[in-house]
């Protein structure tokens, strides 16, 4: 028997004690604040986007708190890691809902996590504000609690098809990561591209975390399509671009802005030479709206940085705060009803949350124009009326080269 040996009672007691001690810390945390949960992908496949979400949420909370908070209370952001997997996401969401008693859960990045958390949020009556694009997230009975701060997969798909066509491509192929979000962009792309007279050569699917993407790249680029739409995230897209660059294929590449920019991470990953000429598309005015400037200032980032997910979470916190102030209630069933009216108006356009809060308190009409885009909401919780910006990476930075509906 070693001197260091513990009995199993001691280990068990230790485990129980740590749970009890830690949970006590949670339950008796600072009162009098209004808690909003941020379920961010801090580790796992969404890892590259977790930190920008947290910064966006905190910047928005600071702006609101500086303007006097909501209902006379300060906003507190409670962060939880969903590890980019649905099971860990549900466990973290339950902690946010049951222990921290947050009014809403924001920032849900992965569509798979959003779909898994949704039944829990609906059962407990917590508002759910997501970044995920899979169409299914807002389908069915959401009790008015689920709001998407992101383009739907369907709208993404046709926006890409139009951009690619406008760029002069006659043939296109798709290289698609196997996730609910990216899959939902495929059929709309094909339909739109064909309707505009284009021809789709191949649709190839791949799995995340593959050791190599060589087979897929050769299959798609070997037929020399004019354009290739790569529906994926930053880790896979970086690997694919390196592979394409090494093999010297000439097809133009198109992807989401969160895969080909996101604080310049993509160019860092692959180098300026490989990134040259890569196209990315994103609902605008992400680059230059008033609210976006506030967001960049709040997070200490230089002008011109493109951070779609961070800005989306920024919008979520602002819209939530305004909706709560307008509803005069921190109960999700009450304030969720106001979310659409914050973005849809009627009234003059306002980008500064402090000004918007003043107008609400004075009972004046207005509509909030977001940092990510000048979005409006449909009754089902999807964004509509979006313009899509077409960016191109030139000499290591993204330049806006056109817009499309």
């Amino acid at each position, binding site marked *: 028997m*070693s001197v*260091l*040996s*513990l009995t*199993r009672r001691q*280990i*068990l007691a230790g*485990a*129980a004690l*740590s*749970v009890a001690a*830690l*949970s006590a*810390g*949670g*339950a008796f*945390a600072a009162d009098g604040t209004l808690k909003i949960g*941020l379920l*961010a992908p*801090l*580790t796992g496949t969404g890892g590259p986007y*977790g*930190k920008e979400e*947290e910064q966006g949420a905190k910047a928005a909370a600071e702006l609101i708190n500086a303007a006097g908070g909501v209902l006379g209370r300060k906003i507190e952001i*409670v*962060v*939880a*890691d969903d*590890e980019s*997997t*649905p*099971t860990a996401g*549900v*466990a*973290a969401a*339950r*902690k946010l809902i*049951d*222990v921290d008693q947050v009014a809403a859960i924001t920032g849900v990045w992965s569509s*798979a996590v959003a*779909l*898994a958390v*949704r*039944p829990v949020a609906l*059962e407990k009556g917590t508002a759910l504000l997501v970044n995920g694009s*899979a169409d*299914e997230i807002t389908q*069915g009975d959401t009790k008015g609690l689920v709001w998407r701060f992101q383009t739907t997969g369907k709208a993404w798909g046709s926006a890409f098809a139009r951009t690619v066509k406008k760029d002069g491509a006659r043939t296109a192929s798709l290289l698609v990561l*196997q*996730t*609910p979000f990216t*899959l939902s962009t495929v059929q709309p792309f094909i339909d739109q591209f064909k309707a505009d007279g284009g021809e789709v050569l191949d649709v190839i*699917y791949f*799995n995340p975390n593959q050791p190599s993407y060589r087979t897929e790249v050769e299959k798609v680029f070997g037929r020399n399509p004019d354009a290739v739409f790569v529906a994926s995230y930053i880790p896979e897209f970086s690997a694919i671009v390196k592979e394409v660059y090494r093999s010297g294929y000439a097809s133009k590449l198109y992807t989401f802005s969160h895969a080909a920019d996101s604080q310049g991470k993509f160019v860092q990953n692959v180098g300026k030479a490989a990134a040259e000429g890569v196209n990315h598309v994103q609902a605008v005015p992400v680059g230059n709206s008033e609210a976006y400037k506030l967001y960049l200032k709040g997070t200490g980032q230089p002008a011109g940085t493109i951070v779609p997910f961070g800005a989306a979470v920024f919008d979520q916190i602002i819209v939530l705060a305004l909706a709560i102030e307008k509803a005069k209630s921190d109960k999700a069933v009450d304030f969720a009803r106001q979310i659409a009216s914050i973005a849809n108006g009627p009234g003059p356009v306002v980008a500064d949350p402090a000004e918007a809060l003043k107008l609400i308190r004075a009972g004046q009409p207005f509509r909030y124009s977001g940092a990510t885009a000048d979005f409006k909401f449909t009754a089902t919780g999807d964004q509509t009326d979006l313009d899509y910006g077409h960016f191109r990476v030139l000499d290591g930075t993204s330049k806006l080269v056109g817009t499309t509906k």
Partner: protein
Amino acid sequence: MISYLIATSALVIIAAIAGLALNLQWGLGGLVNFGLFGFYMLGAYVCGLFSVWGAPPLVAMAGAIVLVALASAATSLISIRLSEDYLAIVTLGFAECLKLFISYEEWLTRGTLGIPGIVRPFAAYVPQGYGDAAFLGFAVLCLVVVFAVFERVARSPFGRLLRASREDPAVADTLGKNVLVLRLKTFALGGAALGIAGSLHAFYYTYIDPTQFGTIITAYAFMAVVIGGRGSNVGVLIASFTVIALLEGSRFLIDVFPVLDGSQLAALRLFLVGAGLVAILIFKPDGLVREYRLRATRS
């Protein structure tokens, strides 16, 4: 807080049932099943699909138990030629293939979109707000049944034979025991338990998709068996609680260390979970509880 503890306890129960299944196959039988998560996933999908096709939850669960037991028994047949590391590789391969099948065969499984709206057992009779508590009760009942059966098996002549074949299958064979049939039965029995665990997973989340199932489930089961003490069912129960307590309890670090930001804590948390598990094995290298041994009574 109480509803959080109830929900987390349900996770402990599910992990414990998966751990018990592995303890039977690997702890007692020496059959390395790295593909555990595949059988678990099969259980969840069979139960989920039957459920959304309109079968009552308990019928869906029974279907999952039977099908996973059969699939598991069929897989054990490869142990005719393979054992130890090779069996581990093949079972892992089976599980990964199954995951790809489920991800791509959208006509059957809805692919990566997953299956929403799975109905829990007795949902119609449970008053609003008590769903999780009722589910926990049902899960505990399942655990009691699995534990009782497996404990009985471990203390029976069958369990003795299983341990003998773990130590040296050739000796068991030479003594006239059919090792292949023994392994077939062990895999089937373990598979049935994984069918239960998978069904409970589907009922707990009410939504399943392929990304919920990965090698991490196999890893948790191995952690439960290794920490609990290989061969000991009681050990597995205690270890499942310890593993989930580490995983979930560490989520509260964020409230204790507000200085660090979320992404730093997230990385630190996963690191601490690993360190905690290593520490337990340093202090208790043989696990928490010794396996059952028949003792001769001394006069």
